[in-house]
């Protein structure tokens, strides 16, 4: 698995004051939860953004403002809502999702979807009208037009996905509430992410180790950004 090898690689580069496997397991959980949540968000957001960008319908402005408001949702509130949903007393209680990665993915999905949708929508709306018209004139179906527009807007959409990923992986409030910040007694993370681990260290007053984990988190986000940008460049060269 890609995440696991990334997780195992990083601690080798920096010598960390933690038990064996601890840091790699929290990196793994952070990536696992954020990548899946952002992937699901992307699959949901882009069709929504395309429809909203290319079609006109009543209430469009209202939907837009709902999405924009969603970008500002405090993560703790999202965490609480997801907690009530997945708690034993909540509507999804029988699925026993509380304190699991799946619950964390749910809350990050809610958090990442608004920015991905809004930024993708801005990118799609920014595509030159001429491109759309040309696609139409050349006999393209509505799907063809959408694909052409998507291709033109790909940089903006990549930015949107990165923004969503950034929000998901750096978020602490909701994953702490619904995930429970759990590791096994051997120090292998079950629902502990880099952010909740930082919160735990800070709670104990271990600010130095908290800083180290913070540096790991920043490095990870940088690495993901670099990979995405590089993929984009290769796309252009071809």
């Amino acid at each position, binding site marked *: 698995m890609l995440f696991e090898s990334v997780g195992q690689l990083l601690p080798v580069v920096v010598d960390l004051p933690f038990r064996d496997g601890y840091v790699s397991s929290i990196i793994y959980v952070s990536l696992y939860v954020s990548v899946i949540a952002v992937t699901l968000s992307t699959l949901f957001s882009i069709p929504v953004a395309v429809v909203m960008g290319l079609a006109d319908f009543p209430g469009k402005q209202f939907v837009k403002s709902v999405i924009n408001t969603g970008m500002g949702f405090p993560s703790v509130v999202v965490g609480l809502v997801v907690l009530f949903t997945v*708690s*034993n*007393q909540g509507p999804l*209680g*029988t699925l*026993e999702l*509380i*304190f699991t990665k799946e619950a964390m993915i749910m809350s990050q999905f809610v958090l990442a979807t608004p920015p991905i949708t809004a930024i993708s929508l801005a990118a799609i709306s920014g595509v030159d009208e001429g491109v759309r018209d040309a696609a139409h004139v050349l006999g393209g179906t509505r799907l063809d037009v959408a694909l052409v527009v998507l291709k033109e807007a790909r940089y903006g959409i990549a930015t949107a996905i990165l923004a969503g990923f950034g929000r998901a992986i750096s978020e602490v409030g909701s994953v702490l509430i619904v995930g*429970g*910040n*759990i*590791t*096994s*007694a*051997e*120090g292998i993370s*079950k629902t502990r992410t880099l952010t909740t681990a930082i919160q*735990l260290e*800070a*709670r*104990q*007053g*271990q*600010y130095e180790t908290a800083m180290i984990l913070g540096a790991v988190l920043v490095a990870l986000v940088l690495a993901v950004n670099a990979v995405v940008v590089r993929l984009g460049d290769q796309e252009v060269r071809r």
Partner: protein
Amino acid sequence: MPIQRREFIAAIGTGALATTAGCSQIGGSNSQSDGESGGQAGVAGETLTLTTTTSTYDTGLLDEIHPDFEDMYGVSVDAVAQGTGAALESARNGDSDVVMVHARGLEDEFMRNGYGINRRDLMFNDFVIVGPESDPAGIQGMSSATEALNAIADSGAPFVSRGDNSGTHTKELNLWEAAGTDPGGDWYQETGTGMGEALNVANQQDAYTLSDRGTFISQRSEIDLVILVQGPIEDGPEILANPYGIMAVNPGVHDNANYDLAMAYIGWITSPGAQDAISSYQVNGEQLFFPEAVSEDPNFQQYVPEGWSSNSSDE
């Protein structure tokens, strides 16, 4: 032979854990076909959710002792460190199987409302009042915690409160009440954080605070605060005692609670072996928790809300 059996159970447990939850069924039935280990291994591969306070988790105690329980039953324990108020609330919502907390009043309420059953006294340590070495309120060595708090309030020296409905916060509010002072004003700050952070805030501001001894010891090397009023472990006032209790979530209220495993856990942690492990756990060369589950004397009050008696019209 017992060792082999334990290894076998552990192997089944690990195998089941390595895959998805659905496989616990397979682990369970496999072990039942092995006549010898049938009784125990029925729980193999299951997960026990324990909600607890930050002090038991942050001091490293649970990580130290849990592998023994996990190996014994081939299960895993998810310890969620939340603070007493939140730990009980999670259990009230049916989101945990067993709770380990330290606020007898809240525990009693939890039992009276039917959520918790089979409470046991588990262990204790004590609270200490810590503050800057300069001690502007002059409380050093006072034998009464309430007098010390009143002295702090009178001097207007900064005091940091947890303010988070944790066991320590509950104790602090009880102490203020016993002291007959309603704290408030610029000098009284609620941080709404865990004990470690609260100690750091107090350290930054040369403030006083109430801390459990365990967290203070584990953090002592990084802060300049000193113990000014001792708890009962060091012959301080009894009012600063800090007893921890453990309870199972009532399966009659929440039928999804893993009651079997919760009782196995309570049985294990109150057993002589685990109690010894608790007393030998040290941080910076000091013992943090003092077990009290194993005793020759009957201690009926541990099972019921404080002051409850079958003669009273209570229930």
